[in-house]
């Protein structure tokens, strides 16, 4: 495993700094846990416990919109009408962000949720007024994040027992994908970090109020981790199972 050396070499890649005009077109890096697209699975929601020890970007300003998120996504439709060039069009997400928001503001360790829904556009919601504590690898602070169907075409979003909001008029199609982990947007090569854990990933079957299953299908037993390295820069991300029901993930870029 040569990751530490590659981290060192990353310092030499500062020439890859890109301009602000192209930032939104840049790919993102991910270290995630994800389910395959299984028809009629997890139709009514998902939940996971998250421990976030570190989320940090070195600089955030009007021309540098790096960010790191530790979060969970719920893709609400995977049928052909909900896919654009291979990309999901509709989802709900919840988590914690440090760095740039889509409004070019800068936040740190801030809880957020967002949704993209048919006809409704894409909206991000931030909660600087909701407090939480960082954990550590040896003393985790676990928070339950949930996205669950609460009424017709309605999804409730919860973080740590706080009802953050409700995604409405968000009628899902068929098929779901459940994902959680680290998202990293690289505009400028700088010192960005994320460290945390996930556990207790569960899914709710249909209909709403249906049984919760103590797993995400296809996740666990060494399966379900995906590292997506798209930026072309050289940050380092890792995710590993520390048990069948717990992951540890990190991202480092110098």
């Amino acid at each position, binding site marked *: 495993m040569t990751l530490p050396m590659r981290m060192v070499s990353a310092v030499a890649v500062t020439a890859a700094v890109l301009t602000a005009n192209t930032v939104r077109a840049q790919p993102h890096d991910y270290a995630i846990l994800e389910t395959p697209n299984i028809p009629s699975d997890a139709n009514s929601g998902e939940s996971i416990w998250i421990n976030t020890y*570190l989320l940090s970007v070195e600089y955030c300003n009007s021309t540098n919109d790096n960010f790191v998120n530790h979060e969970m996504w719920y893709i609400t439709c995977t049928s052909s009408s909900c896919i654009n*060039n291979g990309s999901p069009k509709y989802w709900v997400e919840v988590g914690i962000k440090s760095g740039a928001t889509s409004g070019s503001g800068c936040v740190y360790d801030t809880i957020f949720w967002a949704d993209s829904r048919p006809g409704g556009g894409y909206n991000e919601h931030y909660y600087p007024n909701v407090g939480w504590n960082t954990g550590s690898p040896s003393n985790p602070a676990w928070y339950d994040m949930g996205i669950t169907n609460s009424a017709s075409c309605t999804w409730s979003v919860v973080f740590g027992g706080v009802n953050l*909001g409700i995604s409405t008029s968000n009628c899902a199609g068929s098929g779901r994908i459940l994902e959680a982990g680290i998202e990293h947007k690289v505009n400028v090569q700088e010192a960005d970090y994320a460290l945390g854990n996930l556990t207790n990933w*569960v899914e709710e079957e249909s209909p709403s109020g249906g049984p919760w299953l103590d797993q995400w299908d296809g996740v666990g037993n060494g399966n379900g981790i995906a590292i997506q390295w798209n930026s072309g820069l050289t940050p380092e991300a890792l995710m590993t199972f520390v048990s069948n029901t717990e992951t540890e993930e990190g991202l480092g870029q110098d």
Partner: protein
Amino acid sequence: MRYGKGQHRMNRATSVFLALTALVVLSGCSSSGGGSPPEIIGTPAARLASATTTSSATSLVLSTATILEAGSSDAAAQVALGDATVRARLRSMALVASSGAGVSSPTTILAVAASDHQAAQTIISGATIADHAPVYVVEMTGGPFTANQYPPGGQAPQGDVLTLTIDAQTYQVRDVGFHPVAPDLTQIGSVMTL
């Protein structure tokens, strides 16, 4: 400006990350144990109760997030929008956001004051937000505006209209919206051009 909760964590970030790397080396990226059928565990409440008392290794304790300030309705924002200084500040924030979203010169920049964040967001995004602080809503046209985050395998969302919902007291951006059609700000209050 550096961002992160505490410089001390920034300083030890590298060593922590290297420790994580070592952990992966030791584990060989493998998991332990064999598979078992999924367990049906009933309601979320029952699931949480069982999860806090049982674990394969150690007991897991669930933490609770805290609402620090829920906000309250206040008509002062509507009055403040008549202040040229406030409008200039909002316009500056709008132009930064618009530029960051790929549009350096939006066609229009409108603003409205709302006494209740939740009521405003119901009109702007359709979402129900658990907050009632006074806010300003700024709406820009002339897109496509492009968002900054998206799921794995996704594409950056775009919209012809960009909205910012800004806390009237702190000027923190609370909501960002990318819309196919401009939300009707007149449903919130008196609309002003910035």
